[in-house]
């Protein structure tokens, strides 16, 4: 840090202005740090617990881990990784989550474009119904959909669970993207049409490249929801080892009387890994995309 010395009064003034601003902002920063700390505390406790030996997790709180003698171990992690079927279910989770993210995102782009740019009979009514579907609780649909799936022999197949996840994700996806496409400048579409571009061409060459922030945040939402989903997988896919995703296999770590829950601490971090990677790699789009469709101008 360079101190203002000698006659350069202007620099001194600027220096003190920065200082004043820093002092004024200190309370704000302090509040942010405190909130972040409180927010992260449970995760921190979970993380510390996951590194403690089993009997200590059961006997005492995680904060006692910082007392000497230190007793840390990776046993919980190795148990989870080595437990039967964890590798297979990681693959299963990917096999479910990737198509169940791609399908609704792609379908939603085309649908949202239609709702935004095409004029057809009953457009607003259909859109209203789709928005209305946002508030239908998923539990209401389980039995009727499962009956249909049984007839079509889709129960227990990946195709069935892709369809289910796509359908549950679509109302929100269409709603988000339609509002985003609405904001795109009309001139852009008009000039494309004048150049003779088809709708398909407009979507592929114009809409998709300009909606990357919205698409990325949508993909993150959908991926996280599918990755963390237990209910849909359990109902439509079942818990048999060859199709069970990680959420189902992790829930098998605990016995019916609740013993073995200490492994969940490690399992939580293992299953968090991939969503974290997805989130951080798409983060810069996410920040821009989170306000997608919120301001209509």
């Amino acid at each position, binding site marked *: 840090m360079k101190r203002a010395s000698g006659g350069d009064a202007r620099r001194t003034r600027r220096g003190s202005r920065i200082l004043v601003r820093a002092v004024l902002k200190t309370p704000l920063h302090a509040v942010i740090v405190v909130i972040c700390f409180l927010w992260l505390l449970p995760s921190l406790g979970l993380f510390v617990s996951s590194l403690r030996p089993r009997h200590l997790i059961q*006997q005492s709180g995680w904060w006692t881990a910082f007392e000497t003698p230190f007793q840390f171990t990776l046993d919980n992690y190795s148990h989870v990784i080595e437990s039967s079927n964890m590798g297979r279910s990681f693959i299963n989770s990917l096999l479910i989550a990737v198509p169940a993210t791609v399908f609704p995102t792609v379908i939603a782009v085309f649908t949202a474009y239609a709702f935004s740019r095409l004029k057809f009979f009953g457009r607003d009514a259909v859109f209203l119904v789709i928005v209305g579907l946002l508030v239908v609780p998923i539990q209401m649909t389980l039995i009727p959909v499962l009956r249909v799936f049984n007839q079509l022999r889709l129960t227990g197949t990946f195709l069935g669970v892709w369809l289910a996840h796509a359908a549950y994700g679509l109302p929100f996806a269409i709603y988000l993207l339609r509002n985003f496409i609405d904001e795109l400048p009309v001139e852009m579409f008009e000039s494309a049409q004048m150049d003779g571009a088809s709708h398909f061409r407009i979507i592929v060459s114009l809409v998709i490249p300009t909606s990357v922030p919205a698409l990325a945040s949508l993909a993150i939402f959908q991926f996280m929801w599918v990755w963390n989903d237990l209910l849909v997988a359990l109902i439509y896919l079942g818990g048999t080892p060859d199709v069970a995703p990680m959420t*189902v296999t992790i829930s*098998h770590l605990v016995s019916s*009387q609740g013993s073995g829950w200490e492994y969940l601490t490690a399992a939580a971090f293992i299953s968090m890994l991939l969503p974290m990677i997805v989130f951080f790699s798409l983060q810069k789009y996410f920040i821009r995309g989170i306000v997608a469709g919120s301001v209509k101008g």
Partner: protein
Amino acid sequence: MKKAVTVIYIVVLSAVVGMPACQPSMGGKVTVLGVWGGSELDVFNKITADLKKTKNIDVEFEATRDINAVLTTRVESGNPPDVAILPQLSLVVDFARKGKLVDLSTLIDVGKIKNEYSPSWIDLGSVDGKFYGLFFKTAVKGLVYYDPQRFKELGLQAPKTWDEMMRLSQKLIDMKKTPWAIGIESGNASGWPATDWIENIFVRQYGAGPYRRWYDGTLAWTSPQVKKAFQMFGDIAARQGWTYGGASGVLSTAFQEAGNPVFSDPPKAYLFQQASFMAGMIEQAFPDLKPVTDINFFVLPPIDPENKAVEIGGDVLAAFSSTPQVKAFLEYMSSSDAQAPFAATGATMPNHTVPLSAYGNELDREFAAILNSADTVVFDASDMMPSEINAAFWSATIDYIKNPARLDAILAQLEKTRQDVYNK
């Protein structure tokens, strides 16, 4: 065209080659839905691997801890598993009355089961005179764990009657110590450990007959019997200074960890009531404890000496289809061969031909002995009640510990739930 011929040729060839491999045994598969996980699931996979070897039957196990919702959804939508492993007898009753379950006496050799199971198991598993539920893995309820070393230091002895137990608690109070460790938190099933207390008190006070009327829904919750059972529980659990952590400790402590204060060093409490499966969990949390010398138990002592019944909880097998594979699976599961490996995990098995040597340690053997010598076995009453009443009972115990003075209002609310359910 040539391609098609080749495909047909390959299909036929593989069918012919594949056939002899599965000829000597039955083949096929059984789908099973249950609540097991962790070590239970490991053992189950081990014993079903044997079934694969001897009969070539594949057992596909699906586990969920929310069996109530998942099974109901699957049954309603016409996609039930072949066999369900149910922790609540009320579900067996439900599905049996709806005509979804197979009467096991038409499927398996009940004579053999009658030789190896005591008659109470068949009675408990029967609904309206038909045999639907085959008990598999059970736990004895209403056991009080303590540390014999600490008892010796303080000159205390395991009580023989309820009054002795209350005097023992008072003695500990007089020594400025906390007698009881109680914790009833268990996620969305919070309160069930308290219902176990009340049920054990009820059956010791009034016997198996009124107990049955209570869970059958013919005894009012506002009856003096139920009220007395709540009050006797409250005399321990809701009494100032009698429980570690007081009322808020009781309500917020997870049942899995509730016994820790008894075995920690120094101890913070001296008595802890739970089922037999808890012994293994305590031994895991405190690996240095030696069974019998450092951790022992007594059965909650009798109140009215006339009424001797052992309360149990457990998992019951029920069949939704009657294929030969289901028959083979159920007969295997009822046998000592399938049950002995589970005995080693700390479960108490209903087949009394399971040798005592199969149990993991001295405590587990004593649990089995209690079960085998019991005159009357009753099932956990709350798990016999319809789910709505069961859930209401769980949360009523929470309200009661929070505010014991509201007991009459709490019981009136439960009575209203009972009437709503039975008058539907």
